[in-house]
Each structure stands twice: as C-alpha cells, then as structure tokens.
C-alpha cells in the first residue's frame, strides 16, 4: 500500500471520483433531481450519495486510503531518509567507485588534502575525511540534504492538510446521526418548533451556517443545509442588521454589498458594531461572519389592479413580498403570491450595436394561482423602457419556471404614464363611441346612405371582433369566411379599418378633452398601433389585470454566512509545508562526491552520485570537476 504504483493509483482514483461532483450539480433541492433524472435514477444516485458526493462515506473512504497510503509511505521511508542525511557513505568499496557512472581522474601536481577540503567546503559541501587501506586518502562530500527533507515535508503536508480538512468536515455529525443523537429536519417550520435533535449546540467546534437577516431584525441561530433538509446551529451571539446597502457603478452593475451589523454576545452581553462586506468578513468569538448574498426582506408594495377588459376604476391592493392576497374575480378565487422585488435591474437594452447595460428601475414578481393550484408567474417593471425609440411598460408571463418570460408591451402615453392606455382600452370598449366613429368613417367613404350604413355595420362588426379577442380573433374569422387567395388582401383591409377606428376614437377624445396632454405625440397613430398590439397581446397574458406598481417601501435582507473552522490553521500550515517541500524536492540538487588519492599518486579519482541523476546533475558534475581542476592549475 505504500508503493509508488499504489500512490499513483490513489491520486488517479481521487481525481476521477472528484469529477462526479462537478458534473452533477451538488446540493440542489431533491425535487429538481427527480425532475431531471426520473424516479429510478434519482433513487440510485441518492443511494450512492451523488448529490453530496464529497461528504459521501465512500468518497471519504477513498480519501482515507490516500492519506493512509501517504502515512505508511512517510513512516516507512522517514527513518531511512534521516539516516541518509546523517550518513556519509565512507565505507564505499573501491570496486563500486570504479563502476560509478561519473567516475573520472584528475591529475594534480602538489596534492594537499586540507586545500581540497576547504575548496569543497567553499562549494557548500559537507566534508568528511578518512584513510583507507591504511595509507590512501578518501574524502567523502555531500550537499543538498534538504532535497530529501522535501520528501518528508510534502508528504507530511498532505497528511496535515487532510487532517485539517477532516476537522472541518462533518464526520462528528455523521456519527451522531448514525447513532440517532441528531436528526436532519426535513420540513420548513418556525425555529421554535424545531426539535432539539435537529439543533447543534454552540459547542459544535466546526460549522458553516447561513443566516438570512431582514433589516431591523435580529437572529441568534444559523441554518445548515444538509442533504435535502437542514439543521439549526445555535450561535454564541445574536446578530442584528441595522442596514444593508448596495452600491452601484455608474453603469448600474453592483459594486459592493455592505451589512451594518450589531453583534451581541449571549453570555456577557458585549456589543460590537461593525460593517462587513464581500472580502471583508468579521470574526467574533471564533466565528467568522461573511457577507454572502442578499435578497428581498419583504418589501411593501402599493399596487393598482387595472382590469384590461372593463372600464371600472382600478382596484388598489396593498401587498408585500412573501405574502399573498386573495381576490375573487368572476366568482373565481385567485391567489396573488408576491415573491420578489428588485430595486435595480440591469438589462442590456438599446439598439443591436449599441447595447449596453442600463438600470431600468424596480420590478416585482408574483404568481397568480387559481383554485386548482395552477399558477402563472409574472414579472412586472414599474417604469416604461425604451424600445425602438418608444416607451413601453413591460410585464412578462410564463406558465412554468423552465420557460422564458414572454412580455406584454403596453405603450406609455405622452406623459410616460399608463393613463393613456387606460383611456384607450375604455374607448375601444365603449360601444356608443365606437358606433359614432364607424358611422363617421363610413360616411366619409361613401355619400350613398345605404352603402355607408352597410359599411358602418361591417366596420362595427370587424372592430367588435377585434375587441373581443384581438388580432387572433380576426385571423380566425378570416380563415373561416374568406377564400384562401383573398385572405391576405382582406386582412390588410381589416387592420387598416381597425386602426382607422381607433385613431378616430383618440382624435374624438382629444377634441372633447382639449386640456388633456396624454396624446400629445408627433404622430398619434404610432401610439394607436402600439396600443392595439398591446391590447391584442393581452389575450395571451393569462390575466385580466395589469398590475401597476404605484409605490413601495424597500425592505432588504442580507445573506450572511457564519463559519467556525478550526481546521483552517492546520490546512494553512500544511500548505506552507507543501510549498516548501516541493521547492526543496525540485530545486535543491542532492549530490555525493568521493575523492580517492592513492598514496604518492599524481592523480585523484572522483566519483559522483545523486538520487536524481538527470541532465541537470550531469551539468553539476562537470561544473564541480572544472572547479577542482581550475583550483589545482593555479
């Protein structure tokens, strides 16, 4: 188990096993796994703990084998390494020197041992001298012992890092869960109702818990997500959020998230006031508090529900994020569930070439759920956005979270308000006014009474058709009643008639309300067309109501993370050792040198050895020999 081959296998196996958790997104809600894989695979994967693979017993077991193999390797080799560092190989036999790969002879005139020894010492060698065969000189020199220490350093480092990691892992909890002392809570419920078995005490020595803190509120526990449930972590202090602030760049992208916290120790009541932000955490009582994310904290919304298909006054609704309002419409109970509010929204808008991120202002998200439990999702912006140079109010709808939003675009009037469209939809649904308009238009087209009355009736029918179902209705009508080859021509005429009537209605409105500036456009017919399109699209919006956001009170919540990580010290220590060790192993040249001089000889024999005899070492041997030669030449 301590062999090199085993080590390589272990390194490869850990690598391969690690891939799983990067391919399969970890720690997602279990429902989404069921949707993605189906029941059979879901259960199989769950059995293999693939949804939190890095905490899985089998994965930990592989890691354990890696560490065990490393430990065995270290404990087996360390005594030898230390012995090697201490030992000068003085008892080498002459035959083995002769067989040395780098053996060579240098002729010298006046050999003086002490000179050679001090030369070698200058060259950073450790030197030992000895007489062999009773009369010959042997000098044993060596350098680069740290290269060998590098081996111990790196391998010890892996063990220390693993132990540190293990301290911060969840082994203790796993054990407690297995013997039934602790239990993962699966159901969302108020903290006070959560059983003690699902609580972790403040004495828990390592954790990573989350806390969602609403502005102005205080909390003294964190939540640890585990598998498809969670645990409650008791904290040694309470945390209150005074203020949460987001700063933005000029372009609107977020620049900083900042939480102004009050941390109060539970035991001694000591209070700490401190701002934290991303990359600038705060450590209190051994627990580090991080800014991790943010969301809405239950913003209050004042809404106007505008019925698109009636002239009734808009309905005021007071709503709040995470709350729901019930409304009875046509004897149907509708549940309006408000889910999110965002003050800033950065969208890429503008023309194709000059698209740039722009803040388009607040929006909110809600669902409308009917009695059968079916729900549509909506995303509505408060302010109109510029599209093709015109202003539109936007609201997106989708039937399932997997879809993209499809947007209903309602044109803003000349005052950039919704008022113009409200007038418009009331006008087109006002039978009396429509009749008046059609009669006038018909009269202009033909002076023959009979003809113009017929025309007026036709116009009215077409317009009614549109009002009750938009262009879709018109298309269905044409499909049924007009021969194929004429359909296009007829459709063009119908659209013109509808536009003409709508335009006339607005002109009449302006004549009757001369003070109104709602339709002070250069070309009001562009607005008319946009309004007709918007009205027609509203039949696919899935709701009778356009919800206007009148005003709001923004309440934010800061997402904090609370970490206690005693293993960190050991991981960092191991990391330092690892870097030092690798450096020693790679960049320190380990070398041994033997020099033998037979008594009275004019030559010395040199032999070299190293535990890594590669090209660099050959260069080292040549350099050393050259230096010795040069020394004796002088």
């Amino acid at each position, binding site marked *: 188990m301590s062999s090199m081959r085993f080590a390589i296998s272990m390194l490869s196996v850990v690598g391969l096993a690690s891939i799983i958790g*990067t391919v399969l997104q970890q720690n997602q809600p279990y429902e989404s796994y069921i949707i993605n894989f189906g029941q059979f695979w879901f259960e199989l994967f769950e059995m293999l703990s693939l949804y939190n693979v890095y905490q899985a017993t089998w994965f930990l077991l592989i890691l354990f084998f890696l560490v065990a193999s490393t430990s065995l390797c270290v404990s087996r080799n360390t005594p030898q390494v230390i012995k090697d560092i201490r030992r000068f190989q003085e008892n080498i036999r002459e035959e083995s020197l002769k067989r040395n790969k780098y053996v060579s002879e240098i002729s010298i005139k006046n050999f003086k041992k002490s000179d050679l020894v001090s030369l070698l010492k200058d060259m950073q060698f450790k030197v030992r001298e000895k007489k062999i065969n009773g009369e010959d000189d042997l000098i044993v020199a060596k350098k680069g012992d740290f290269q060998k220490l590098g081996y111990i350093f790196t391998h010890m480092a892996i063990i220390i890092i693993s132990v540190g990691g293990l301290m911060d892992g969840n082994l203790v909890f796993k054990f407690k869960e297995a013997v039934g002392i602790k239990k993962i809570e699966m159901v969302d419920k108020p903290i006070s109702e959560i059983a003690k078995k699902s609580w972790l005490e403040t004495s828990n020595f390592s954790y990573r818990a989350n806390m969602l803190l609403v502005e102005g509120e205080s909390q003294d526990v964190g939540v640890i997500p585990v598998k498809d449930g969670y645990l409650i972590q008791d904290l040694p202090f309470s945390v209150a959020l005074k203020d949460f602030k987001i700063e933005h*760049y000029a*372009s609107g992208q977020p620049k900083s998230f900042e939480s102004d916290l009050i941390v109060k120790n539970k035991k001694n009541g000591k209070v700490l006031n401190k701002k934290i*932000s*991303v990359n600038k955490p705060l450590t209190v009582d051994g627990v580090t508090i991080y800014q991790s994310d943010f969301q809405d904290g239950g913003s209050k919304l004042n809404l106007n529900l505008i019925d698109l298909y009636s002239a009734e006054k808009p309905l005021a609704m007071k709503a709040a994020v995470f709350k729901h309002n019930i409304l009875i419409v046509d004897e149907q109970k509708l549940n309006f569930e408000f889910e999110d509010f965002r003050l800033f929204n950065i969208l890429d808008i503008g023309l194709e070439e000059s698209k740039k991120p722009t803040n388009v202002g607040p929006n909110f998200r809600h669902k409308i759920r009917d009695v059968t439990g079916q729900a549509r999702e909506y995303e509505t912006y408060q302010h109109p956005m510029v599209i093709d140079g015109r202003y539109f109010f936007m609201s997106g709808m989708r039937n399932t979270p997997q879809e993209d939003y499809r947007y209903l675009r309602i044109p803003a009037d000349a005052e950039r308000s919704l008022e113009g469209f409200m007038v418009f939809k009331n006008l087109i649904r006002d039978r009396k006014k429509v009749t008046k308009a059609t009669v006038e238009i018909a009269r202009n087209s033909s002076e023959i009474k009979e003809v113009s009355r017929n025309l007026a009736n036709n116009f009215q029918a077409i317009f009614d058709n549109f009002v009750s179902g938009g262009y879709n209705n018109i298309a269905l009508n044409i499909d049924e009643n007009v021969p194929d080859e004429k359909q296009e021509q007829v459709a063009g005429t119908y659209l013109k008639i509808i536009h003409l009537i709508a335009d006339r209605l607005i002109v009449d409105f302006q004549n009757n309300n001369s003070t109104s500036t709602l339709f002070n456009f250069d070309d009001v017919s562009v607005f008319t067309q946009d309004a007709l399109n918007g009205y027609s699209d509203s039949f696919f919006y899935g709701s009778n109501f356009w919800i206007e956001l009148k005003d709001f009170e923004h309440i934010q919540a800061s997402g904090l993370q609370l*970490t206690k990580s005693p293993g*960190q010290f050991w991981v960092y220590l191991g990391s330092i050792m*690892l870097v030092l060790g690798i450096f020693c192993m790679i960049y320190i040249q380990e070398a041994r040198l033997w020099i033998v001089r037979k008594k009275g000889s004019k030559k010395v024999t040199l032999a070299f050895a190293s535990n890594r005899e*590669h090209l660099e070492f050959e260069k080292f041997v040549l350099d050393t020999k050259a230096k010795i030669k040069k020394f004796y030449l002088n």
Partner: protein
Amino acid sequence: MKKEMYDYGFALLLTLVGLYALTNFYSYMDQYEVAILVGSVAGFSYMGIQWNRFKYFFIASFTLAFLSIFLYQGDLGQSESNFFLKYILSSQSAIMWMTALFPLALLIYWFYLFVKQEFYGSLATFMVWAASIFATAGLLIRWFESYLVDLDVGHIPVSNLYEVFVLFCLIASLIYLFYEEKLQTKKLGPFVLIVINAAVGFLLWYTLAKNADVIQPLVPALQSYWMKIHVPANFIGYGAFAVAAMVSVAYLLTGNGFWNRYLPPKEILDEMTYRLIAIGFIFFTIATILGAVWAAEAWGGYWSWDPKETWALIVWLNYAAWLHLRLIKGLRGNILAWWSIGGLLITTFCFLGVNLFLSGLHSYGEL
C-alpha cells in the same frame, strides 16, 4: 563587470518605476498592494538579472505602455482620434498586434525546422519576443484604460476570459523563450507555438463574436488584492503545463526516423518536460493555496468543492501522479509523454471547460 552594471541599472530602474507608482498612486492602494508592488519590483529585478533578454523585454513593454499613457492624456476618447493609439498603442490594438505576430512566428518556426537556416530561427524567436512585448504592453495599457473608464472601475486586467487569455499567451511564450535560450534549441518553437496559437484563435473568436474586449467593472467578490497574485500564479502553472505538453508531443515524434532528423534528442525533451512540469507544479500549488486563502475570505470557506476548486485539485493530482510516475524505473518515456499531453486536456478543462460547461461560485468568465 559590465553585465553587473546592467543588472544594477535594471534593478535601479525598476525601483524608480516602483517608487513613481508608489508616490503617485499610494492613495489607491492598501498595505497588501504596496507589498505586492515591492515584491514585483524585487521579483522582476531578479528575473532580469537571471535572464538578460528579460531586461530588454521588460523595458520595451513598459516604454510602449508609458508612451500610450502619454498619448492618452487622460482621455479615453483619444483611442479613436489619435493615429498611434488607434492602430498600435491602445490596448486592443496592441493585443491585435500580438494576435498577428504569433501565427507569423508559428509559420516561420516550421519553415525553420525543415530548412534549418539559423536566420529563420532567429526571426521566429524575434517574432515571439515582439508578440510578448505587445501582449505585456497591451495588458499594462488596458490596466490604465480601465481607470480612464472610471476611477472606481479601474483594476488589474486579469478579471475575465479575454484578459487571462492574453496573459496565458504571454506567460506561455515567456516560459518557452526562457528554455529556448537555456537549452540552445529553437526546434521546439514549432510545437509550443501551436498551443499558443490555439489560445490566440480562441481569443480572436471571443473578441469578435462576443465583444469580450469591453472593460467591465469588477463584481464585489473580485475586489481584492488576492486577484493580483492568485491569477498570475495560476497562469504560470497553466502556461508551463501547456508548453510541457507540446514538448511531449515532440518527444513522441522522436521515435520516428523522419522526425529524428529535425528534433532534439529524447533526453533533452524529457528533461525539459520535467522542468516545465516541475515549475508549473510549484506555481499551480501556490496558486491553488492562495485561491483557498482568498476563498476563505470571500466565500466563507477555504474549500467548498466548487467546480473550479475541484478541477484545480484534479489538475494538481494529475501532475502529482506524473511526478511520482517519473520515479518508477521502466515506466518513463512514452507513458510520461502521453500523460503530460493528457494533462493539457485536464488543464484546459479546468481553465476553460469549467467556465463553459459548469456553473459555480467561480464563474467570472462565462461565454
């Protein structure tokens, strides 16, 4: 004696530049950034002393960058109106020059390999140096430009895929140039330049198709001095691994009689692969550790098994295995070469694939 004079001169010059930066921009720096500046001056001085040509490279790059800064006169609009900025010295133009010079160098290296005339070898080397100078100048200028966009937008250009691809090309070519000089052979240029040009190809596509060269402000998590050391350290690792893989390709080809006539001996290639992987391994280890320390500060834990972290671990395990493999007698040679080529695939996935296919905390360069 003369060389030493140049060495001291270079170190002095760098110190002066460092002091200039310190006196002018001290108010924008925290204590760590001051330390990084001092460390950089020391580090680059050391490199210049150890490697003579690095001095000229360094001075040339900085001269171009300073020239550009001078031409800008504090107005980003100059990049459109000033001729030199528009075609040579705005960061985008400088980087475009880099992307033009690398393919040229590749062609000349291959020509040299078969024609064997020293002139072409030197020409190709010169091209790589010129491309590296443009890359460095381009990055330095981009750094400056980001402050012209807005003072609070300004940041070191290692924050998105566009910027780190330039960094990758630069570091890989510097590593190659170093060993080209040290081992006295230009015959590996044709191979190493392939991987650099692959990066250039991606960079061009990314620039043209995605408008990736626009300077974007930093998200809060990236606003840290750690970025200045974590990212470059990582790319020394990536660059070294990439060059090592290309040397391994040459190694595998040397088994063939045809290629033997053109390529350096196997022992040199083996030695070079080892040294590249060794230096890559050290820097990659340091970078991963620094990443962990940074993660502990920004994300609340030194290790979260985030896809990027996990793949960094896989890369590390792979090269740790390679280094162990090299110690088994009888297993060296082709297996090692194949392993190192496989290592490039893993490295590429860690560097690019994770951003393309996987999601996680570390999603700073998405497509």
